[in-house]
């Protein structure tokens, strides 16, 4: 006998931002923002503070109007549709439960507006609260619940209306680290179970990379790159993305010809846009792309070794004053203790370069 899913799966919805601009006075919060979100996927919007993530989400929810461009949901322009007709389930950053209603009534609120009978409402609210792991707290009021529990109720409340798109605006940022990771995994599980198209706004890259099908990296109101987490990490399209996602070393180098750069006494292939030969550039390299060998002739010294389980991250100082990070497997950490003189080189893989001004 197969268990019935607690909540009916929601048919995925497609969302398209086409050249969307939103201007607040002199600020261009969104500036020619274009993005397609596929039915049923979890898309994370990642970017520094003030880059327009919340604005993008609020436009989709209908709290705000576009200045120009188009916003399509399942191919239909929704710019004229008022908030309360859009069927977008939103979970807010700040606690947003109705303080005078119990958890059950909070979850049932949207159903009540849709004319569900009392018994129907109670049953569905109960199922949803069970889905978010709160069946023991249905009668509690918001002020009797922890922050994490309140955000779970908010999630259940947003899901109760069978939203076309689930919108999450940094729902975890007010929670402590442990609850955050736990809830993050749970949101992903529920999202996969229901198949609801989801937009998740965050400025925490770990959160974005670990949860999302695709991550859209934003900068100054525009989309820099939107790809699967692994692609974003391994093949960042721009130096901004490369630096924003994960950790990056910056090594001074010089372009040799159109496809290679000279870094110290090593020549490595260059990727992406490469400036003219002879240009001084910064070469971007991940810590795991830095090779370290203990060597008395090396020109760097290990300063700090931080144990991360399988890998240990070394912070090294080169004689020319450049700081370097490298991840080495932890069983080698013994021979590379702080104070060890080491020789450093790059893995022979294409690297991104940026001119100091860009």
């Amino acid at each position, binding site marked *: 006998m197969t268990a019935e899913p607690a909540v009916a799966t929601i048919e995925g919805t497609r969302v398209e931002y086409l050249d969307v601009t939103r201007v607040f006075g002199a600020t261009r919060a969104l500036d020619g923002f274009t993005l397609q979100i596929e039915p049923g996927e979890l898309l994370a919007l990642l970017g520094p503070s003030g880059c327009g993530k919340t604005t993008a989400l609020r436009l989709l929810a209908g709290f705000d109007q576009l200045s120009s461009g188009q916003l399509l949901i399942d191919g239909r322009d929704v710019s004229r549709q008022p908030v*309360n007709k859009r069927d977008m389930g939103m979970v807010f950053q700040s606690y947003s439960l109705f303080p005078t209603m119990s958890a059950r009534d909070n979850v049932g609120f949207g159903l009540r507006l849709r004319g569900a009978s009392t018994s129907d409402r109670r049953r569905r609210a109960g199922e949803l609260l069970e889905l978010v792991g709160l069946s023991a707290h249905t009668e509690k009021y*918001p002020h009797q619940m922890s922050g994490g529990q309140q955000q779970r109720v908010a999630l259940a409340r947003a899901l109760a209306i069978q939203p076309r798109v689930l919108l999450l605006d940094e729902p975890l940022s007010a929670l402590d680290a442990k609850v955050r990771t736990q809830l993050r995994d749970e949101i992903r599980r529920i999202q996969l179970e229901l198949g609801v198209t989801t937009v998740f706004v965050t400025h925490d890259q770990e959160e974005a990379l670990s949860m999302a099908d695709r991550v859209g990296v934003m900068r100054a109101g525009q989309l820099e790159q939107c790809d699967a987490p692994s692609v974003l990490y391994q093949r960042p399209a721009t130096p901004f993305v490369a630096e924003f996602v994960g950790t990056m070393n910056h090594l001074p180098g010089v372009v040799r010809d159109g496809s290679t750069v000279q870094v110290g006494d090593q020549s490595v292939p260059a990727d992406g846009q490469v400036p003219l030969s002879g240009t001084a550039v910064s070469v971007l390299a991940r810590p795991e792309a830095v090779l370290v060998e203990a060597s008395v002739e090396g020109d760097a010294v290990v300063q700090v070794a931080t144990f991360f389980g399988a890998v240990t991250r070394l912070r090294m100082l080169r004689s020319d004053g450049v700081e370097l990070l490298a991840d080495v497997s932890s069983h080698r950490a013994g021979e590379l203790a702080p104070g060890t003189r080491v020789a450093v080189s790059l893995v022979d893989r294409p690297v991104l370069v940026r001119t100091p001004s860009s």
Partner: protein
Amino acid sequence: MVAVTSVAAGSANPPEVVTSRASRRRLRPWRGLILAVAALYFVGPVLAAFWFSIHNSHTGIDFHAYTGFFSAQGFGTAFRMSLLLGLATVLITLILMVPTMLLVHLRYPRARAWVETFSLLPLVIPPVALVVGVRDIISFTGEDRFLGTPVATVMNFLQGNQPWLLSLLYVVMALPFTYRALDAGLRGSSVTTLVEAARNLGASWPVVVWRVVLPTLRTSVLNAGLLAFALVLGEYTMAKILNFSPFPVWLARFGDTDGQLQVGLSLLSLALTWVLLLTIAGVAGRAPGTARFPFRRRTS
């Protein structure tokens, strides 16, 4: 876990705990003194009035001031008029002010300074000036060109010499207090997010106001209503000048014949206001998750 932490914290800073306890002990006599002075200032006159209302040097103590008013001529009419005026004032105030303030709070935050200034005007303009202005306007006979227009209808209604006119004035008079009460509620809660959450879940504006805003702001809405109501129960000048006879006007006139009854009734109306206040405090205190009156703070 929690207990362990708090014990550890406590033993880590014992001097601080002792200091604060000692300073609190030093403060205590002052607190008592201030309380006593304040109590004397407020309760003294009330007690004196009470004594006056029951004591007569010829006949001794009797309570006719508290029993005789039912039969006093005109009391019923006057008191009913005051109650109805109070209710009308509260209703008009809330219907007018809650949506307005919500709009200002959510949509036009920059207009707040203007609305606030405007709400203070009744404190600056003497009630006499206000009421004389109103009297002149409603006695304006109008010109024929207004005939058949809504202006004429409204003027006719106002000139009908209905006591309802007074409640319109009282709404204005109560504005400084009702504005403040509602504003405090709006600022102290996360109404903006709650409204957005409700809209997002599909609520229309009336539903938002009725099911989310009013319950959330329950305490301050009740406060605003109570302040407006109390003002109506005690207002004399305007009613007198416009020739109406609600409770305060009746009371002043009646006092000419029986001073003790007048004082007794004043005390009763004071008590009525207090009972209302305490009822509201009780109701607000029981509502789950809402701000409570300071003296009803829960310890759990």
